């Protein structure tokens, strides 16, 4: 295996959770809901997935549990921001704090346990192709799922009636309500989907990326996924590109740490956050007037009665 091939394989593993979480948040934000709790849902997803995978000795069971846990946590958020129209920013922070706490409680008994590597696709002939074989035809199922998710999201948003309804609701919830579009229902479903995606992304971290659980293992990836949605201008295709650019940056930093680059390791560890800030600034500076954000994003909706 060449170094470039090894880098590419780690990039895929590093990018996949970011992509899945970003796609989920993208849908919620397209519906007009800003859920800042991605980090918390991811953490709970990681802990529940690992706990379930170890207890059931089933990786599939782990992924299902991770997605389910993320979705369950997002229900709490949905109740706050839709049920009682609470402030979305503060509720998202509450979700993050709650999720990080719960993940610690759930994961604590499993510290020290390890999982075996997940099965990868293996197509005789194709997987063995030089250089492109492993990256294209030798990945784990979740990687393919993440690509399918991005494609399905693009198709749903821009090619289906449901997607049109959802975008309309995110653009202007008052108009949508006046036309009889189901504002709260669409937002509810979008929040749950976002929760499931964040949970799945967390599951990927603990079951594939590290294969063990440790406290705080999400390490801000939920926040980076949130930034990716902004960076992607709320478009699934660009979210995919952004996640892989970001994954590449993270992996290069890891390789730099392992290699002979004489920089403090902390500076290299800080790169993802600094790069995110820089990306947000460049994006905002390019067009100050339009970022592509749904116009109703973050605004609570309470119909007249």
């Amino acid at each position, binding site marked *: 295996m060449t170094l470039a091939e090894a880098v590419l394989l780690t990039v895929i593993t590093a990018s996949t959770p970011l992509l899945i979480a970003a796609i989920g948040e993208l849908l919620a934000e397209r519906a007009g809901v800003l859920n800042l709790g991605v980090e918390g849902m991811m953490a709970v997803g990681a802990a529940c997935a690992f706990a379930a995978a170890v207890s059931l000795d089933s990786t599939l069971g782990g992924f299902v549990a991770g997605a389910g846990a993320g979705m369950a946590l997002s229900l709490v958020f949905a109740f706050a921001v839709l049920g009682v129209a609470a402030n979305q920013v503060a509720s998202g922070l509450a979700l993050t704090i709650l999720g990080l706490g719960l993940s610690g409680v759930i994961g604590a008994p499993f510290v020290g346990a390890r999982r075996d590597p997940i099965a990868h696709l293996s197509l005789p002939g194709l997987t063995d192709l030089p250089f492109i074989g492993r990256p294209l035809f030798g990945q784990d199922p979740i990687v393919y799922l993440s690509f399918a998710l991005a494609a399905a999201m693009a198709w749903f948003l821009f090619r289906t009636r449901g997607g049109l309804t959802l*975008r309309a609701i995110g653009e202007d919830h008052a108009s949508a309500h006046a036309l*009889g579009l189901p504002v709260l229902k669409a937002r509810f479903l979008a929040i749950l989907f976002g929760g499931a995606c964040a949970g799945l992304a967390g599951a990927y971290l603990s079951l594939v990326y590290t294969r063990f659980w440790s406290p705080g293992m999400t390490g801000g990836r939920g926040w980076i996924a949130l930034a990716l949605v902004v960076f992607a201008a709320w478009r699934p295709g660009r979210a995919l590109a952004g996640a892989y650019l970001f994954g590449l940056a993270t992996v290069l930093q890891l390789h730099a740490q392992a290699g002979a680059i004489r920089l403090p390791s902390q500076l290299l560890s800080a790169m993802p956050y600094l790069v995110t800030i820089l990306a947000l600034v460049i994006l905002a500076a390019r067009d100050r007037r339009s970022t592509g954000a749904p*116009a109703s994003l973050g605004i609570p909706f309470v119909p007249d009665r």
Partner: protein
Amino acid sequence: MASEPSVDVDRAGGVPLVSMRGIVKRFGDFTANDGIDLDIRAGEIHALLGENGAGKSTLVKILYGLLQPSAGEILWSGRPVVLASPVAARSLGIGMVFQHFSLFENLTVAENIAAAMDQGLSLGAIAARVKEIGERYGLQLDPGRPVWTLSAGERQRIEIVRCLMQDPRLLVLDEPTSVLTPQEAERLFETLESLRDQGTAILYISHRLEEVRRLCTQATILRLGRKVGTVDPRSVSARQLAAMMVGAEVGEVRADAGPAGAPVLSVRDLSLPPASVHGIALRDVALEVRAGEIVGIAGIAGNGQSELFGALSGERPANAASTIVIDGVPVGLQGVNARRALGAAFVAEERLGHGAVPAHALSDNIVLTRHAEPGISRLGFLLPAAAKALAERVRTAFDVRAGRGDPAAATLSGGNLQKFVVGREMTRQPRLLVVNQPTWGVDAAAAALIRQALVDGAKAGAAILVISQDLDELFEISGRIAVIHDGRLSAPRPAGELTREAIGLLMGGSGEGAHAH
């Protein structure tokens, strides 16, 4: 009301297409609709008349399934129906054209139509039908254009086409002409008449009496949530209709203008790029307002009025200091408080959220525009007692009816809050007053009081600039009138030399000698 004309005359027999029976709608302890009956027949244009706050919007929202009545029933071709949602209303054949368009700025025309279609149609099929309907009714639209690039008239066309796509049996239009030039309004009437002739029932909501008399054969009048009666509007005068709406004669504004003095506000070469993607650019605006005169600016909403107001008030700095001069001082780059210090005062269009903070008490809202005055704050500290006293003065001087104590701005009715907001500025005795939409959404009595206050202010020597969509209002109080269209301002001309038609052409952007310089 002894002179009330023949109430409840049935023009044609048979079962009405829709009958609303004893409709009651309560919001908490406020009754918006109190036992209202309304019959609309196929092939008739039925007017729903009433002042702001009379309960028209509530009744129409019930008819479109957006609100559920607290009591009463709705019959459709004689059978009772429950309209649980707009989807249910549309499936019966009810179409609605909203006053505040329910459109999505960033979506295309076709997407906007598809979003409201209950049967799934591809965007291509929708585009084809849009074209077909456009040709049949003279409502041309480009399906691929994003809505934010369209004028108000074109946007209304989307709303109408969106209804016609579903072959409605009842079409409801809420104040449709408020965003149209007189010429565009005439074209709309022709479309509505051709729909009527094909048997569509039309409910036409308006407070413009002349157009109701021109178009409608039945008119139901609401006042304070109750039905006053149903008349044939062609058989009564506009004055009689107005009396039924208001319940009392509204005094006329005495607008005897004095001689104009020295210029207080001079605007030259004012150009500003749009503040947001969907905004309008101001282009080479020039204008002069003299002490003692009222200058009116007419125009359809969204043609740069709020941008002009923002530039004049200083909420957004202009392109150069010299483009805006107040009392000889170039203030183009100064903020709003520097301009207030020169004796300027401003009344914003949006009362709640711009001219006043909804959740704050009236005395706190006094502070909003007057905090720089020595009586209201000292060395950075507030003087709440002074603000309370001033709020009380404004309430007395402008007959602001509000709850006891120091109520929040949001609890006032539109008319009372507008009187408060205008009064807050007028009690300063400003040298210059810039007002955007002084009586928008305000009841007739409050509107008359506000117009009189403006006229009296000018008589006392203030230079007053009134931006308004209401042509009647501008003709009533202004000495000179200019028209704003797509960010350009025509040269102001004496009101006496102008006709509604000439202004209408300028509002549509096609008047002769349109622009200043």
